[in-house]
């Protein structure tokens, strides 16, 4: 919304500069997006002139040489290009020195050999409309030399306030004036609807028209007045200038009046050509399936039964609260005008304008919910202008369906409650002064004030807290003390153990040289195919967005891996030689979840490494490329940091290399996977190197971490350490060898770890040698060789029997 200060000043005596005023408004709840100048930068050197004579320019067909009285001792000679300039006209003149809207300063010029000492203005040259073809002719009766700004608003500073959605009353300049009054103390003048020339006609409806409202819920109030003998024509300059300052185009006097009154009161109006209303009957009703309406902008609109419209005998003629219909539009031929001011259900108007993609000045005001009483205020103000500017006469009577809103409520504002909500008192007198300035009426009460809410704040101020906000915002929050809340009950706060462990897991990966990324939750539905998922794979149950911004962002990612691949591909394409990345974030599958949430969400921790395990250095020229064992080591680091017991098993995942896929299993089930990305999947991201990858459900991992860890005595009795080299058939997994050793040596084997793998000639075809560190330990004694020897025998036997293994050497 645009609020020209010049216009605002008609209702409130603005005393601050525009910048100071907008700062004050911002500090009392109305942000001002910007302040700008409409029209010339200054009013000086714009005056009224009388054309004394206009003669053909001797050397130019299209120019006239005019003698213009500008109220000075001598008339000025002004060369003018307008075809309509003529002696006797009263015109607007810019004198040399005038600074035009574009910042250029007018000088004395010579046009085709004739000196011109000023410029006779066309409308567009002074920011009113786009009319350039003709001189702007002013009404007679203003003395030559009168400053132009006395005739109309040549220029004004304009505020552009961002009205919050609760303040429907600030959709009009008078509402802003009331805010300025309350916020700055500037005197507020009477509302422009205080005098209603139609006041005497309110009791009855005008003859010859009828209005039926089918659903009062959609239309709480419908008022109408009828004007006859209306002459539709151009608006006076002052009105055009006002609308221009507010950013609106002048259309005709009748339409301009409706816009003008809306801009002041915040309440939209609509003028019908009464002779185009079939039967003089209007019905407010829901649209029927398949009904259509051509709106004022010439568009044909297909309606649905949720849309509210105004129909006459011939069908729909106006889109309620959003835009009029072209059929009943006011035209140059119009002589009888039906002026409608109604109140519509905000939610329905919002839905309609969204559904039709049609937002108008009217709909944006109606959707905030306007007060029924405001409708007659707008009628009053519009009536004054219709009588003044169109030559029309008011037909007796005011049609009113619905009437006023519910009676005003009275809310107690307790002094004590102000202190308890704000933490500082506001004097009762000050509260009263603020509330009265805002239009509330106030009666003293024992413990505070009884406050009656004016109709224009009916929906917004309904509780004591709302009143406290009013007095607090106008009183100012600058002086509010800054205190900390008491903590009587001793809340400890802090991160939960799970949250600490998630951080720990992330820190482990950072410590191992990985960079964290933040990927998009959005994904392309083709992601499933790119991951080579079977058509019935569980990851295919995607969360699908109904109204995505693009198809590439129309589902939520079912895995973190694609986000990591996206980031890797992005960096590799920009010259990165290697990538070690991780993300800690949400992944999504269609719900409902076990906990009853709408989707299955879990906190995933995923990582990938492409390229060498570390950057090559001068003493380490060729570090190995990251492979599955690199991912395995990272999983070990993360889960080890969390103290989680886990096992590896062979796995199968479509997006991983089939021979290099491992699943992470704990007592609680599968916790994730690691391996190398399938080359075909990598190729889909245009990556042609091995990609070591891992993914852990870190939310579940943190939840099952031992809490708190409990002491084991590992220091009092040192372990007995042995190394075993075992030759097993090539298909036997390291994990099964470790499990066999641990089980056979139970309970004294405290650790069994593979530290070397060898598959050369010496161990024979189809066989592989694994070297293990094995620790034997007990918590209550130091073990002797004699005690361990039989266990060692048991282990050797078990390896032989269970795995066809034999000790090497």
């Amino acid at each position, binding site marked *: 919304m645009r609020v020209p200060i010049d216009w605002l000043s008609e209702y409130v005596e603005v005393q601050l500069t525009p910048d100071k005023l907008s700062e004050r408004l911002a500090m009392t*709840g109305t942000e001002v997006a910007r302040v700008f100048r409409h029209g010339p930068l200054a009013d000086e050197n714009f005056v009224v002139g009388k054309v004394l004579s206009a003669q053909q320019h001797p050397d130019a067909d299209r120019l006239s040489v005019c003698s213009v009285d500008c109220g000075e001792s001598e008339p000025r000679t002004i060369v003018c290009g307008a075809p309509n300039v003529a002696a006797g006209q009263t015109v607007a003149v810019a004198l040399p020195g005038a600074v035009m809207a574009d910042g250029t300063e007018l000088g004395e010029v010579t046009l085709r050999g004739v000196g011109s000492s000023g410029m006779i203005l066309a409308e567009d040259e002074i920011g009113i409309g786009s009319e350039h073809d003709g001189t702007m002719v002013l009404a007679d009766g203003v003395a030559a030399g009168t400053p132009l700004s006395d005739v109309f608003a040549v220029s004004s500073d304009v505020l552009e306030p961002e009205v*919050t959605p609760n303040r429907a009353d600030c959709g009009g300049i008078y509402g802003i004036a009331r805010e300025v009054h309350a916020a700055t103390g500037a005197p507020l003048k009477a509302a422009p609807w205080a005098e209603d020339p139609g006041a005497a006609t309110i009791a009855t409806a005008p003859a010859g028209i009828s209005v039926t409202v089918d659903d009062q819920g959609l239309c709480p109030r419908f008022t109408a007045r009828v004007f006859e003998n209306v002459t539709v024509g151009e608006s006076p300059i002052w009105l055009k200038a006002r609308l221009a300052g507010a950013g609106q185009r002048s259309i005709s006097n009748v339409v301009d009046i409706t816009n003008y009154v809306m801009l002041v009161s915040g309440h939209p109006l609509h003028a019908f050509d009464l002779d185009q209303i079939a039967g003089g009957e209007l019905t407010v009703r829901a649209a029927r399936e398949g009904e259509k309406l051509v709106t004022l902008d010439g568009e044909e609109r297909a309606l649905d039964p949720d849309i509210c419209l105004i129909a006459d005998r011939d069908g729909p003629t106006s889109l309620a609260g959003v835009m009029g219909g072209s059929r009943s539009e006011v035209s140059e031929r119009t002589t009888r005008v039906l002026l409608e001011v109604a109140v519509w259900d905000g*939610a329905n108007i919002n*839905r309609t304008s*969204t559904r039709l993609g049609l937002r108008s000045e009217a709909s944006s005001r109606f959707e*905030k*919910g306007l007060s029924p009483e405001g409708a007659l205020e707008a009628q009053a103000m519009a009536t004054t202008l219709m009588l003044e500017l169109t030559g029309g006469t008011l037909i007796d009577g005011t049609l009113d369906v619905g009437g006023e809103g519910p009676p005003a409520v009275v809310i107690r504002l307790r002094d004590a409650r102000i202190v*308890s*909500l*704000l933490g500082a008192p506001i004097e009762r007198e000050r509260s009263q002064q603020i509330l009265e300035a805002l239009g509330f009426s106030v009666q003293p009460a024992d413990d505070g004030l009884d406050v009656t809410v004016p109709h224009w704040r009916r929906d917004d101020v309904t*509780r004591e*807290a709302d009143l406290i*906000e009013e007095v*607090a915002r106008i009183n100012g*929050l600058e002086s509010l003390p*800054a*205190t*900390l*809340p*008491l*903590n*009587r*009950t001793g*809340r400890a*706060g*802090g*991160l*939960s153990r799970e949250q600490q462990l998630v*951080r720990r897991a*992330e820190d482990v990966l*950072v410590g191992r040289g990985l*960079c*964290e*990324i*933040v*990927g998009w*939750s959005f994904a392309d539905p083709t992601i499933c195919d790119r991951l080579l998922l079977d058509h019935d794979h569980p990851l295919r149950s995607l*969360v699908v*967005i*109904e109204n*995505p*911004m693009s198809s590439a962002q129309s589902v*939520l990612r079912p895995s973190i891996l694609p986000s990591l691949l*996206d980031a890797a591909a*992005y*960096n590799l394409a920009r010259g990165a030689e290697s*990538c*070690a990345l*991780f993300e*800690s974030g*949400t992944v*999504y599958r269609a719900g409902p979840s076990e906990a009853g949430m*709408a*989707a299955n*969400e879990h906190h995933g921790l995923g990582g990938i490494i492409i390229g060498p395990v570390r*950057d090559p*250095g*001068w*003493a380490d020229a060729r*570090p190995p490329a990251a492979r599955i064992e690199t991912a395995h080591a990272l999983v070990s680091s993360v889960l080890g940091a969390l103290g989680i017991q886990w096992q590896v098993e062979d796995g199968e995942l479509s997006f991983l290399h089939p021979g290099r896929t491992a699943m992470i299993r704990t007592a609680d089930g599968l916790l994730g996977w690691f391996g190398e990305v399938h080359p075909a999947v990598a190729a889909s991201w245009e990556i042609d190197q091995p990609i070591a990858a891992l993914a852990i459900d870190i939310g579940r991992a943190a939840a099952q971490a031992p809490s708190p860890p409990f002491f084991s005595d590992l220091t009092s009795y040192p372990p007995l350490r042995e190394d075993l080299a075992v030759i097993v058939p090539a298909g036997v997994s390291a994990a099964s060898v470790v499990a066999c050793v641990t089980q056979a040596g139970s309970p004294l084997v405290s650790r069994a770890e593979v530290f070397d793998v060898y598959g050369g000639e010496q161990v024979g075809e189809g066989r592989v040698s694994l070297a293990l560190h094995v620790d034997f330990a007990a918590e209550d004694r130091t073990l002797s060789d004699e005690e361990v020897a039989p266990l060692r025998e048991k282990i050797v036997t078990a390896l032989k029997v269970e795995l066809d293994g034999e000790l090497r050497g």
Partner: protein
Amino acid sequence: MIERVAEIQKQAEAEISTAATSVALEQLRVKYLGRKAELPQLLRDVAELPAEQRGAVGRSANEARQTLEALIEAAAARFEAEELTAALADDNVDVTLPGSPVEAHGHHHLLSATRREIEDVFCGLGYSVVEGPEVETVHYNFDALNHGPAHPARARSDSFYIEGGGDGSEQTLLRTHTSPMQIRIMEQTPPPIALIVPGRVFRRDSDATHTPQFHQIEGLLVDEGVTLADLKGTLLAFARAIFGADRELRLRPHFFPFTEPSVEVDVSCFVCEQGTVAGGNRCSLCKGTGWLEVLGSGMVDPSVFAAVSEHGYDPESHQGFAFGLGIERIAMLKHGVPDLRFFYENDLRFLRQFG
């Protein structure tokens, strides 16, 4: 005999003191203390002396031997230290070569680092951290938070709805703010509560200053006697912890459906003096205003408490405040990141500058 011992000792001491190398010293050790040397021989012969001489001769010979041994040992230690020093001096490398193997140091994403920093400030103030679902229902995202039926955020042009996601208040959408957790937590936990909710949120907006996903931290504190002044103090503590000890706070009245009164919170700019930088130019960070808008907040609206009244929340006895801030915005302000897109491009050259 005793004279002879003294003579040997004197001569040996003189030679040891002038020995120049550890080799020469070793020769002296053999010469005076070796198996064939005179002094040890003298000691061995003590037994053959007459009894009345044995004690005195033995003692003097023994003392002489110990003295010489000590002298040689000291000299040897000196030579060893000197030789080590010389050897180390020869064994030098170019210390300016880079470390190797190159152990890369990883980085937290700036958004994560900022989230942790903010979490830690509030943990220090006694807040807990909770997280909630990103796919929410209209009930928790709008209805229970007092959003009117015509609130623009509900529009399909503004929020992402989920396909097949139910009707009315049970319809599902991507949460547009972290505020739904206010309701979920109050349903589960009676007052007093103090918590923050970090998380990802979604709005249908994509331009220079908006991305369709971004990150917020919600704060909620409910207890007896909580005031707007307490909110101001809390946020001042936050602002000073994040942006520096000299920061001031400004509350501007505003409107949010789920707080009343509502305020927008500005922090005094940390790179300029009231809008002007050194040299008199207008500050580009705060655009010359001297203030940076950082978050929205307010006192919990009575109608929000009404939505959870059966869980022990009564607006007559309990009050609370809530606030919501954008992690991206805090990170951009604090670190001078000029464009939101950097956060989601994940360019390593960007990531490695932070965290």
